[in-house]
């Protein structure tokens, strides 16, 4: 079973971020729920921030939520579509927004993600741009769906490294926790 919001808010990963939770969702991350939550998020941000901040937070949120939709190992089938299950938690602190997603991944996915996250976090802005372009060229040649670009794009847009962690589950999978921090210039 996926984690409930109550359980998630008690995890060290989320507690360490601090701040106040402004939006949380745990369940089937369908395109419809991504759009609905996204509208609530945009509306909330609009009251306090200029459009560029609203757009930045929204863009990172969509990328992360769609990662759950496409790649979570916990899934349901609905009307011939396969939809990922997981959680999204959005936290506001004094100086930043944190978008946190949690979903189950396989042991193989975990190895790839660990490598990818640690690589991306070490890159400077320029290296990140190069890496993005190289990866994109590869994806264009391979006809793949674009997996892998999302994480780079998140870090590039947010301008901060991602926080991530894994938690073993008893079915040989892991929970993948990932958080993107978007600083607000005051």
């Amino acid at each position: 079973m996926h984690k409930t919001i109550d359980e998630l808010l008690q995890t060290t990963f989320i507690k360490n971020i601090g701040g106040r939770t402004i939006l949380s969702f745990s369940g089937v991350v369908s395109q419809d729920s991504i759009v609905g939550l996204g509208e609530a998020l945009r509306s909330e941000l609009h009251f306090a921030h200029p459009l560029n901040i609203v757009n930045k937070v929204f863009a990172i949120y969509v990328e992360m939520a769609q990662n759950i939709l496409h790649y979570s190992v916990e899934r349901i089938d609905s009307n011939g579509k396969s939809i990922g299950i997981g959680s999204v938690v959005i936290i506001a602190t004094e100086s930043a927004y944190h978008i946190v997603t949690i979903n189950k991944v396989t042991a193989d996915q975990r190895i790839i993600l660990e490598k990818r996250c640690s690589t991306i976090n070490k890159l400077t802005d320029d290296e990140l741009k190069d890496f993005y372009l190289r990866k994109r060229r590869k994806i264009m040649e391979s006809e793949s769906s674009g997996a892998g670009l999302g994480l780079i794009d998140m870090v590039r847009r947010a301008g901060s490294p991602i926080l991530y962690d894994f938690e073993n589950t008893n079915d040989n999978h892991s929970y993948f926790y990932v958080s993107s921090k978007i600083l607000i210039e005051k």
Partner: protein
Amino acid sequence: MENLKIESTKYTPEVKAAAEKKEIKFYGSSYPENANEFYKPIYQWVRDYFDEGNDDLMVNFYIYYFNTSTSKCFMNLLEIIETYAKKGRNIKVNWHYSEDDDDSLDNGEKLFMEMSIDYELIPVKKI
């Protein structure tokens, strides 16, 4: 040559392709769960348009947000355009971005980075 008109949704742009105006226009945001499915008919329209002997095309993007899988589709579309431009077709691409949003300019710029296409990045007040 049939015109193509796709109404916008919350997560897909309005698309208007009109042969008599020699123009294809995208307006809105783009983050569908399956971007390929959405953009396939558009690739086809562009190919058909040139294959039927048309020479000039203006491509206008007014997209304030697109996800990474859409960026792959835009690149596909620009590659198709590049192919026809190399064959001598006269194609101009205008990418409109919000002047208050650096990301919106940056994302547009990146699309054209490795393309040889006649393009312009045009600031607008608000998309």
